[in-house]
């Protein structure tokens, strides 16, 4: 009797040990996969940064090696080849205008649809939802013709006004506003506030997380956009960073190619810095898409 108990205890201990080692093994494999994934994701950025510190011939001849010596030439020279401050200025002006207008307009419209008295409310709402499915390629040529006729080619506003609002952003805000309790608004109304004050003093402060989402989406979309600047910008004093990089790539001789890599680091850096500060908002912004 006693022996059977000890043997079964031994058995279960043995099993536990086996389970434990299987668990550890599984964990090693899982973390191994995650680590390999991280290396694949990060390597291109590592490659970019390494190249920005190399010299031209080294980039072409020793793609696997680390830089022989840290060379800042790319970073200093690229300021002579490109008007970097101007490019940043253009891009920031355009991207921040797009951001401000999108945040303002989409919250206004969504607020009206959810909380205000609007004629043909359901119809308007349905049209907004349906508009999300329109592929932008359908509008590419006609919008270009319009802008051409309006003489908007090679201006800032051509990259701002046509993207100052999007059905998708309104949809995100509608989802947010439906969660807000009417009682807050009623309280403000009883206090005698008019609709505009309620909107700016009560609604917008409550909507900050949602506004951050819209803001990030709009800013990133504008900062990283390539097709619209390609279509609409003509002179290099108006260029945005993305289009300048593309043109620069075709113009720079191979021996000075480190300048291109330095420029690419400079272009990516601001967004990465913002990302690390607002990580949670970023991840939410790209995924808070009505999947509840």
């Amino acid at each position, binding site marked *: 009797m006693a022996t059977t108990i000890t043997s079964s205890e031994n058995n279960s201990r043995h099993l536990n040990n086996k389970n434990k080692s299987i668990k550890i093994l599984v964990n090693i494999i899982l973390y191994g996969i995650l680590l390999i994934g991280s290396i694949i*994701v990060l390597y291109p950025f590592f490659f*970019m940064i390494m190249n920005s510190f190399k010299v031209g011939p080294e980039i072409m001849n020793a793609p696997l090696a680390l830089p022989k010596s840290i060379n800042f030439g790319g970073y200093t020279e690229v300021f002579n080849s490109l008007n970097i401050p101007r490019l940043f200025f253009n891009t920031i002006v355009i991207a921040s205008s797009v951001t401000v207008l999108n945040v303002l307009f989409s919250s206004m419209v969504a607020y009206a649809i959810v909380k205000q008295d609007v*004629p043909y409310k359901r119809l308007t709402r349905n*049209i907004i939802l349906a508009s999300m499915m329109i592929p932008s390629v*359908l509008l590419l040529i006609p919008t270009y013709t319009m802008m051409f006729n309006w003489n908007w080619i090679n201006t800032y506003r051509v990259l701002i006004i046509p993207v100052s609002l999007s059905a998708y952003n309104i949809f995100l805000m509608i989802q947010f506003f439906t969660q807000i309790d009417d009682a807050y608004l009623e309280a403000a109304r009883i206090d005698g506030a008019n*609709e505009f004050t309620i909107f700016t003093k009560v609604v917008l402060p409550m909507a900050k997380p949602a506004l951050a989402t819209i803001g990030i989406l709009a800013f990133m979309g504008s900062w990283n956009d390539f097709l619209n600047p390609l279509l609409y910008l003509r002179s290099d004093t108006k260029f945005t960073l*993305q289009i300048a990089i593309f043109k620069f790539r075709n113009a720079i001789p191979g021996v000075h190619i480190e300048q291109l890599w330095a420029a*690419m680091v400079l*272009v990516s850096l601001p967004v990465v810095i913002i990302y690390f500060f607002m990580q949670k908002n970023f991840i939410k912004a*790209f995924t808070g898409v009505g999947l509840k």
Partner: protein
Amino acid sequence: MSKIKLTSKRKWGIIFVSPWIIYFLVFLAYPMSLAFKNSFLKINLIQPEKATFVGFENWIKVATDGLFWKSMFNILYNQSIFIGLAFIISLSLALILTKIKFGGSIFRTIYFIPMITSVVVGMLIFDYISSPTGPIQQIMLQNGWISEGVFWKTTKWLPMPIIAIFSSWKWFGIQMIIFIGGLAGIDKQVLEAAEIDGSSWINTLFAITIPLLKPQIVFVMTMNIINGFQMFTEVFINFDLLGGPYNSALTPVMYLYQKGFQNMQMGEASTIGILLAIVIFILTKVQDKILKVTE
């Protein structure tokens, strides 16, 4: 009294909704009608006053244009690889990240970085990395996996799969996080019950987890189709307007760009845009139907 209040409320409502009305009329409805109108015109951008009505000529031209269908084939080829690859990568990583106990947020942060990088920068880096003098091919050469450098951009079949690999690298992060959100919503008891019943994990995955993730899968697929079929920058950056010697990287939007802005044939370009929009619409509907049937 209440009547006055109502009209004032309505007045504010109209003011607040007016940005959408203006945007919709000027930047959506009007250009859309213009697209249809242009598709029946022979119209040159520089001399729009000389536009002539040509009936279905543009439609027939595009429908019988070998290059247009080549571009359609290319994007289908590219997207079927991209959608499959990105799905497997993002779902596997989402499953792993919901299983592990520590460090999940660090990996999520890392995996999301390609998302915030621009296509221009990402594609330029990728071009160098994958070139015959780049690190990947150098390693393959040193190990004798390939006998000489592969100039993949000028080959017949390689551009689309290789761009699909780039796109998977760029976009898997968002899909992964959407799947993680879906996995978090699955009732743990259901999975535990399956385990007690002796269901293997692979069985549980296909019989329980994936069916329960359907809303997320539908969303990801719809977004992939709408965005992926409009691919432009990825190919424009690294190829000529014809998509290389075999047109193997020509996408419909690049073909539209070439027709509209190089050949100045706005009518034909508009027709390409409409046809592509129709294809995208049909594919999203078909995809919706298929996933509904499997319910």
